[in-house]
Structure formats: structure tokens, C-alpha cells
């Protein structure tokens, strides 16, 4: 049985913002991450504010500039199956289809996917770790197989989302509604690096609701992809994942954006890989150079050096796949 809480399901965004801003309130979208956090007492909730009654947060629609708007309540299964996304933003469809399991994709939402809590086994377990307000990150000296190899700073938990790295690579933005009005920020800036604040995952203030994700119009020749390696083929989070977005112009890579999952507290942008590829043809020697560059800057902990090799191999395979088209 879950710990007790009260529940409210407002029918207007304004009411939802007001209720979500109250002390002890948590937003409930699909609930697939939230209920697990409540069960494991990672979070305590006085009130769940369900946003599933806000029909304006549902659905996929073209944006006026030729991009695409995805309501925060769009399910992961809907993202994976959408013909426009599969055609123009293939990497996002690939990421969505690798999330969790069929049942969880039917229920989990895109907004919830971006705002979910880390899966670090100390954080989810019975440890009063730094991220939960304790003194230290136990992974630093402990069981670090699942933890960060980039940007770890006091806390080494990694961000679990598969959609966030691709959305960041595609240059997507999120719209956020709050008591003071709405703001739009790049997906890249939604999530908080460990070094900035290890006790916070998103920049959302209490009462702020992520209402939609907006994809820019696809540039000519845009290719995008996402693939993660996991311990088993379903349900598992990325040990390492690679999101790529680039333009191929006469065989030459332009506007390369590379974000990694499973390696940092945020989707980790890797400028070294981007530089190795930009302005170059995707041939074997360039791909090999990018794979070497991938390891640069990695700072593995005691038990996760394997992630560096995994990243290099995955980088090679993904670039080869992208080059084949």
C-alpha cells in the first residue's frame, strides 16, 4: 500500500498551477515514476495534483513555423508511433520505442519522462544520500556500475530519460506555465547538472507545469538517431546511450549535435565528438576519430570504466548506421 496522500484532479491549467504550488504537492501525469517514488519513500507527498484532466496538454500538432508541438501528456507510445516523428525526427521515435515496456509506454507521458527522478540504487534505496538531503553520494566510493562518467560533482547519479538526449540534440524547447506566466527554454536547460545543484533534477519551480515540447522545423538533410545499451532488452535504463542529430550535405556532416544518456546527471553534450565530425565526411577514419574523441574527458568511478569502452563502441556503430542512412 502506498503512503496516504490526498488527491485532486483540476480541470483548468490555472487551478492546477495554484494547487501544484502548495506545500507537499506533487504533479501526477502517467504516474509511472511518481508512484514508484512514493512507494519507495524517495518522495513524500501530501497531495497529488493530477494533470490528466487537462485535455489541452494532449496531442501532437504542427507548429506554425513548420516544427511540431507535443503536449506534455502525449504518451511515450504515441510519440513512438507518430508518422511525422518517425519520418522527420526519427531519433525521437527510436528513443521513445526504447523506453521501459509496452505497458509503461502506453501510460507514461513525455512530460513525465523529462521530469522523472534518477534511478540510482542508493537514491531509490534506503540510503539518506546527498540527493535526498543527506551528506554524501554513496556511489562515489561504492557500487558505481550504473553511475556517471562525465560531470559528476558530489553526486554521481545519471539522468534516466531516453527522450531528453534526443530532444536536446534536435534543439527542442519546452514551454513551462506557472503563476507568473509562461516561459520557453531549451530542453538542454531544463535539467540541472550535478555541479549546479545535486538535489534538484529540473529548473521547474513549485507550481510550474511543463505544458509542451516544441521541435524546430527539420533542417534539410537532417538525420537523427538514438540507441542505448542496457543490461536486458526491456524495462532497463541506459547504461550508455547516444543521441545524434546532424545534417548531411553532399556526404559531409554539418550542425552536429551529440548528447549522451546514462553517463551524467543531465543529457551530456559532447563537443569533442561534435568537433571530430563537423565538416567531415562520415567515412571510416572520421568515425574512428570520433570514437577516440568520445573517451576524452571521461572520469570513471571505481566500477564503471566499462562505460567508456561501451560508449566508444556504441559511437562507432551509431555513426556507421547513420552514414548508411
Amino acid at each position, binding site marked *: 500500500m502506498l503512503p*496516504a496522500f490526498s*488527491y485532486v484532479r483540476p480541470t483548468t491549467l490555472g487551478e492546477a498551477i495554484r494547487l501544484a504550488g502548495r506545500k507537499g504537492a506533487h504533479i501526477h501525469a502517467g504516474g509511472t515514476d511518481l508512484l*514508484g517514488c512514493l512507494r519507495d519513500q524517495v518522495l513524500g507527498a501530501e497531495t497529488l495534483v493530477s494533470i490528466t484532466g487537462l485535455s489541452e496538454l494532449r496531442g501532437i500538432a504542427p507548429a506554425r513555423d513548420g516544427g511540431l508541438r507535443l503536449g506534455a501528456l502525449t504518451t511515450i507510445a504515441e510519440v513512438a508511433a507518430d508518422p511525422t516523428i518517425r519520418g522527420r525526427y526519427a531519433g525521437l521515435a527510436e528513443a521513445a520505442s526504447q523506453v521501459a515496456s*509496452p505497458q509503461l509506454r*502506453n501510460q507514461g507521458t513525455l512530460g513525465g519522462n523529462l521530469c522523472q527522478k534518477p534511478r540510482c540504487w542508493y537514491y531509490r534505496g534506503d540510503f539518506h544520500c546527498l540527493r535526498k538531503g543527506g551528506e554524501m553520494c554513496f556511489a562515489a566510493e561504492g557500487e558505481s556500475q550504473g553511475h556517471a562518467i562525465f560531470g559528476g560533482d558530489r553526486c554521481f547519479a545519471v539522468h534516466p530519460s531516453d527522450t531528453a538526449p534526443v530532444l536536446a540534440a534536435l534543439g527542442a524547447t519546452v514551454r513551462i506555465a506557472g503563476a507568473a506566466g509562461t516561459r520557453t527554454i531549451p530542453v538542454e536547460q531544463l535539467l540541472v547538472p550535478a555541479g549546479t545543484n545535486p538535489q534538484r533534477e529540473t529548473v521547474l519551480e513549485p507550481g510550474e507545469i511543463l505544458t509542451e515540447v516544441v521541435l524546430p522545423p527539420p533542417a534539410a538533410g537532417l538525420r537523427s538517431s538514438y540507441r542505448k545499451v542496457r543490461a536486458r532488452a526491456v524495462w532497463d535504463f541506459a547504461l550508455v546511450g547516444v543521441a545524434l542529430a546532424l545534417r548531411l550535405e553532399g556526404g559531409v556532416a554539418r550542425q552536429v549535435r551529440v548528447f549522451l544518456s546514462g553517463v551524467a546527471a543531465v543529457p551530456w553534450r559532447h563537443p569533442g565528438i561534435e568537433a571530430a565530425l563537423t565538416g567531415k565526411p562520415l567515412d571510416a577514419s572520421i568515425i574512428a576519430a570520433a570514437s577516440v574523441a568520445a573517451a576524452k574527458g571521461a572520469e570513471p568511478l571505481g566500477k564503471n570504466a566499462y562505460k567508456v569502452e561501451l560508449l566508444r563502441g556504441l559511437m562507432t556503430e551509431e555513426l556507421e548506421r547513420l552514414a548508411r542512412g
Partner: protein
Amino acid sequence: MSDDNVTRHLTRRGFLTTVGVGAAGVAALGPTPAEAAPPAVTEEGDMLRVVLKVNGREHRLLVEPRWTLLFVLRERLGLTGSKAGCERGECGACTVLVDGVPRYACMTLAAEAQGHEITTVEGLMDGEQLGPVQKAFAEHDAFQCGYCTPGQIMAAEGLLRATPAPGREEVRLGMSGNICRCGAYAHIVQAVEKAAGLRQGGGR
């Protein structure tokens, strides 16, 4: 177990359950008004009044906000076909259809199931007969202990409603959210393929 027996059994269970929680928990057996007011703000410990439509039948219930759909199906409606395994979305034993689509009842609050059509394994009976997916699982010995089976059957039912003639890979992917600790996977895949044929050939 015939459909009639299921209904009678349920009726008795529903009644006992009602008595169990005192006058507060009302498991209505007849049809109730379809439109339910959205739950008002509640205080901790308050019960919510919900109407759940399960296997075509409406139930008026008082639920605690923290009760999952799985808990209500099993402990309040006596529909014990849906099983509790991990209760954290990691095994699939609790799979039910919500508006025809497979979901985990353990990760769904009962309050959130309001306004949706819920189908459990009990709802796949065709009168006195097993439905096609149930029949195929029985014929192919697609289980050993049987604990995961209701969830497997509901995942298969959902898959086949969306994809009536799936290929081998689609079956494996569609069934990938259900674990079988007995390892009956090979027979499960065969049963789903058989069920696709049964449904196409005039089954439901």
C-alpha cells in the same frame, strides 16, 4: 469457471466487501449514471467517490486516493484474475486493458481509472466459453505455475486488438512487458500466434 459463476461470485464478494468497509464503501451492482463529477479537493484520509467501468459493468465505489486499480479490482471488486507481482511496474502480472490498451494496474491509481473502460481477464470470457486468447494459452500449455498467465493473456489481447496479425518479432516485442518466472516464453509466443488465428477465424 462459467461467466455466470463469475458474476454470482462477484456479487457475493462485492457484497461482503461492502459490508467489510461499512456503509461507506458502496459496490453497486446495477448500472449507475455514466458521468461522474471530477473528484473535489480531498483531505488526507478522505475517500473519493468514483465510478469504475470494469468488463462493461459500472461500479460506484469509495476509494482512498492511494489505492491502485489493482488493489480495487482484487480487494474491492473480487476480480482476483489480475495478479500482484512486483507492484512497481516491473513484471506485468497485473496487466489489464484500459480503453483497450494494456497497462499495469499496479501503477495506476483507481481514481485515475475513472472514465475509462477497464477489461480484466475475467472480461475475456465469451459466455460460458474461454475467449480465443485464453483458449490458445490453454491449448499450447503456455504456462507452468500460471501466476503470470492472466497478465500475459491481457498483454496478448491488447496486442492483437491493435495488431490482429502480428509477425514473430511484433509478438515478442508486444509481450516484452510480461515476465514469466517459469520460462514458458516459447509456448507463450506460440499461443499468441495461435490466438491471432483464432480471432481472425471468427473468434472475438
